[in-house]
């Protein structure tokens, strides 16, 4: 099932103009960028312990990890242990869990060929990084109780989408039947309810801090990592990057619950994060 959207975002227009009229203006740009990714630190490589533990950690927090890029860190492993690791199997297992392995850091030189062969990128081990990133010490307390996913800052050499601040559209009033709210570039945040017959459209994520009873379409320009969140989920329709479901096809168990909708390999995924009763 797929919804077709004709995107009229200004950036697309500029892009087309540049091809049609001026051939010499660059249509792309390569840039390094600092961003936060999840780092998977491996401390042992024997498959009998590694894969069950991975399943336990990541499987438990599917919603949190879904589609998240993950960096594999081998700094704690000796060369012999690295040699025992099947990178292709590790990568495909991770993908099967809904996360996206992007590269390896801290690997021994001898392993680089095998890593590249598994379709993973190579990043230098960043020793200095640890002491610099002040934020790292804070999440560590949270880490203990939750997942071992560590948020670290890293300098990526690969071309990355620049994360220049795109303004979030915030609506404080109820969105009523017949009304449409459109965030053509960034996220859309509704600090109230969205009633049946209303429609939300956003290039990025959609957050509804109230009941979602209307239609919500996130990632309308094709961003499959966009998510939709609502405190009370009973939408007429939800769509992410064109994949959609109508109310009738929603699992009864997620109706009127706090729900996070994301797009996984098997289509739209609904994760119930709790339930919410609005104040009278």
């Amino acid at each position, binding site marked *: 099932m797929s919804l077709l959207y004709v995107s009229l975002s200004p950036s697309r227009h500029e892009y087309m103009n540049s091809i049609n009229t001026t051939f010499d203006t660059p249509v792309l740009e390569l840039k390094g960028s600092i961003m936060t990714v999840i780092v998977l630190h491996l401390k042992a490589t024997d498959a009998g312990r590694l894969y069950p533990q991975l399943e336990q950690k990541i499987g438990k927090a599917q919603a949190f990890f879904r589609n998240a890029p993950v960096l594999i860190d081998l700094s704690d492993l000796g060369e012999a242990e690295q040699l025992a690791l099947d990178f292709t199997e590790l990568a495909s297992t991770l993908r099967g869990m809904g996360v996206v392995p992007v590269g390896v850091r801290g690997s021994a030189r001898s392993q680089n060929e095998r890593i590249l062969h598994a379709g993973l990128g190579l990043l230098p081990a960043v020793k200095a990084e640890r002491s610099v990133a002040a934020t790292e010490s804070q999440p560590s307390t949270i880490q203990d109780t939750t997942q071992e996913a560590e948020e670290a800052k890293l300098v990526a050499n690969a071309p990355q989408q620049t994360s220049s601040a795109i303004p979030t559209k915030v609506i404080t009033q109820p969105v*009523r039947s017949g009304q449409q709210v459109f965030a053509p570039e960034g996220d859309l945040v509704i600090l*109230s*309810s969205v009633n049946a017959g209303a429609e939300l459209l956003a290039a990025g994520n959609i957050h509804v801090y109230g009941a979602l009873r209307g239609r919500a379409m996130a990632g309308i320009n094709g961003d499959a990592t966009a998510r939709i969140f609502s405190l009370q989920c009973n939408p007429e329709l939800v769509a992410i990057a064109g994949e959609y479901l109508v109310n009738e096809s929603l699992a009864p168990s997620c109706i009127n619950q706090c729900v996070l909708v994301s797009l996984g390999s098997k289509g739209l995924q609904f994760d119930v994060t709790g339930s919410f009763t609005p104040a009278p």
Partner: protein
Amino acid sequence: MTEKLLHEHTEQTQAKVVVVTSGKGGVGKTTTSAAFASALAVRGYKTVVIDFDVGLRNLDLIMGCERRVVYDLLNVIHGEGSLNQALIKDKRVGNLYILPASQTRDNDALSIEGVGEVIAALRKNFEYIICDSPAGIEKGAMTAMYFADEALVVTNPEISSVRDSDRIIGMLASKTRRAEQNLPPVKEHLIITRYDPLRVTKGDMLSAGDVNEILAIPFLGVVPESKSVLAASNSGIPVTLADEGDAHEAYFDIVDRFLGEDKPFRFMDVPRKGIFSRLFGGR
């Protein structure tokens, strides 16, 4: 005494235009317009109620003045009769007037400018101008709400009615004079009519709480489903001028809350059965 009250009010307050609107048809707009206007007049305010339902007029029937209609709103707009000729004075309450709609034309004949002139003239002479909107979201309904300062959103406790009201509330915030001229927004009030607590407990109807949660505008109260409403309108008497009854009391509560009085909500729960109905099964 009424005269004295009237005088005091005129000194204090500016005229207010109140639209009675719903989106969906048949939910009780005309019943509410007639009852509300009459109750305001009983409370001493000089009030006129205008029928905007051109082509389907029936406010005059419910107000019991259908046999006294000479000129109507459209005649006034088109200069075929004066405003004073068109206004019908109620025979029961001193400061209540009706401006009927035309039965022979359709809504397209209503122009915003024309209605604006009529309302401007009425503002000089009345404290409350109640506009009974037609159903739908077409020109007639838009014209009826355009000049509103406040709105009574009339809803039945069922999904389709609530959704249409939701739509109308959105329009009050965007398609009215106040919205277009960046004035303070139209003040909205919710009235739930034909409310039957027994059917709510059975799950056949939405509860007042549900409706309030969805529409999220200030709540004036419920009007219970009542046989006396039909009886009153058949005899051309607004419920608030008819003999006592649930609906009669409910509408007076609503008007008093509208006027700023703090009254506990009534008629929201299933009435406790008396000894007789308990013995004989009641309904």
